[in-house]
């Protein structure tokens, strides 16, 4: 299969001999998932610069400088994110779809969907709005700009409750699923996600050290675990889509 | 204590082995209790020797739990070697950082 073909939905979800597998709409969404997260990664890392996070233990003048130095890319990145945010809902919908195929029923799938969707508000939207507000009028009172900096970073990094609930129902669904849509070890990786999220709650009291929002424990370990989790999810979504018989009856 | 090991079992863990493992672990714990900083009322001084001893004791305890309780003793080779390496690397790194 040519590399170009492999980049299309039909080439991304295939059987062992390269034929497109599963249902067409699922195939497209499965291919969209890593695409969206890749874009999201570029936005938060390279453009908006919220990951890795700027330091909490800086002066107000430094915070103002952060916004004036990165103003253009912040605005570019977050405006694109505002437009693309709907893609997050679609990626969550794909996971919920696979969860509905599990023998554990629909309730857990809806729980996941709800948790992740609610989490998106403090998780991305708030930091985007805060930072865009800060970069809109650079001559605003520095204390206010500093406030927007803290508010954005805290909401981005500490908004763990919703995601924790979503990962919990995901783990339960995977463990009790008799249809083996997702492999069992993924449930345990989701539990790690919960643990690191809970630890991250410490960042509301520290602005330096390992538990601050840029700290080795609160941030770096958590980001490694998250990357493992996301990578695993992308792979198993693809396997689940390829393993689904194209004529499996649709659920309501 | 009933030796409830089936004679056709592949693993050779018996109730008695487990009991002895527990005794060893508890004895080491009591010894550690005496060594701890909180055990002393006047100011405690850092001691490389004590720390080395504590790390060795911790190593022994962890190894007993792994090999006897978790039955790594009779597990596939990759697990035996993997857990052994992990424990040595972790405690070695701990001691190394402590000395630095």
């Amino acid at each position: 299969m040519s590399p170009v073909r492999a980049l299309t939905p039909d080439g991304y979800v295939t059987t062992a001999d390269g034929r497109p597998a599963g249902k067409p709409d699922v195939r497209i969404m499965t291919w969209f998932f890593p695409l969206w997260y890749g874009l999201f990664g570029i936005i938060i890392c390279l453009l908006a610069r919220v990951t890795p996070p700027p330091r909490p233990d800086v002066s107000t003048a430094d915070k103002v400088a952060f916004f004036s130095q990165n103003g253009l890319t912040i605005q570019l990145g977050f405006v694109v994110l505002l437009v693309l945010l709907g893609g997050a809902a679609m990626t969550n919908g794909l996971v919920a779809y696979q969860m509905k195929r599990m023998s554990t029923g629909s309730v857990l799938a809806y729980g996941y969907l709800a948790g992740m969707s609610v989490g998106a508000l403090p998780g991305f939207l708030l930091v985007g709005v805060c930072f865009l507000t800060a970069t809109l009028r650079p001559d605003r009172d520095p204390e206010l700009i500093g406030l927007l900096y803290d508010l954005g970073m805290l909401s981005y990094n500490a908004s763990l409750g919703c995601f924790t609930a979503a990962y919990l129902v995901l783990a339960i669904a995977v463990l009790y699923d008799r249809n083996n849509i997702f492999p069992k070890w993924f449930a345990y990786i989701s539990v790690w996600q919960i643990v690191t999220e809970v630890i991250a709650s410490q960042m509301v009291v520290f602005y330096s050290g390992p538990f601050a929002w840029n700290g080795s424990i609160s941030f770096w370990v958590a980001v490694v675990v998250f990357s493992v989790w996301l990578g695993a999810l992308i792979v198993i979504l693809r396997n689940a889509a390829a393993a689904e018989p194209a004529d499996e009856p649709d659920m309501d | 204590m009933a030796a409830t090991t089936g004679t056709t079992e592949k693993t050779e863990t018996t109730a008695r082995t487990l009991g002895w493992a527990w005794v060893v672990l508890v004895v080491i714990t009591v010894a550690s209790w005496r060594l701890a900083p909180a055990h002393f009322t006047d100011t405690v001084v850092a001691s490389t020797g004590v720390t080395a001893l504590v790390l060795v004791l911790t190593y022994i305890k962890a190894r007993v739990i792994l090999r006897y309780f978790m039955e790594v003793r009779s597990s596939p080779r990759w697990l035996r070697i993997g857990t052994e390496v992990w424990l040595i690397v972790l405690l070695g790194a701990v001691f190394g950082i402590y000395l630095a």
Partner: protein
Amino acid sequence: MGKVTVQQPDTETVAVPDGRLPGDVHMWVMVLGDLIVFSSYFLIYLIYRSMDPESFLRAQQHLDINIGSINTVVLLTSSLFVARSVLSARAGAHRQAIGFVYAAGGCGVLFMVLKGYEWAAKISAGHTNSDMFFSFYYVITGVHLVHVLIGLIVLGVVVRELQNPGRRRTWMVETGATYWHMVDLLWVIIFGLLYVMR
């Protein structure tokens, strides 16, 4: 794979060249991964400790070593019970196995109660996470406590498995046991690093 049927003397070690993995391989993924994540926490703790060893040492002196040691023995005993329950389950003595699991669960609850009391005492004495050592202490023992809580749920699942005459799958009991032993293993290291070493 080298499987050996041996006439058992009571204490023995028959060398098995390549053995059998107890329980479910997925749980071993969890256990090994968890050990690695905790290892990163331990190493980070050590790094920060080495930046300020005096203040860490002084803070360590305020830990309640009695409760710490008792808790260690409590968890070690719970692991013994869990290991015994696996033996009973293998021999088909499921009621004995259930009894052992309940005993282990009781130890787990006791551990949590003692830990809660220990925290309450420390906090009311003023040792909060404004001190670097104590912030590590609360986070590490806190995450461990969450693991104990999850462990109690796992033990509950094991009990249900053993009570159901249609199931009683040995590998399920072994899988739960593997998780519980990991909780014990982590505590033993935490005890050594936080409570004892200086």
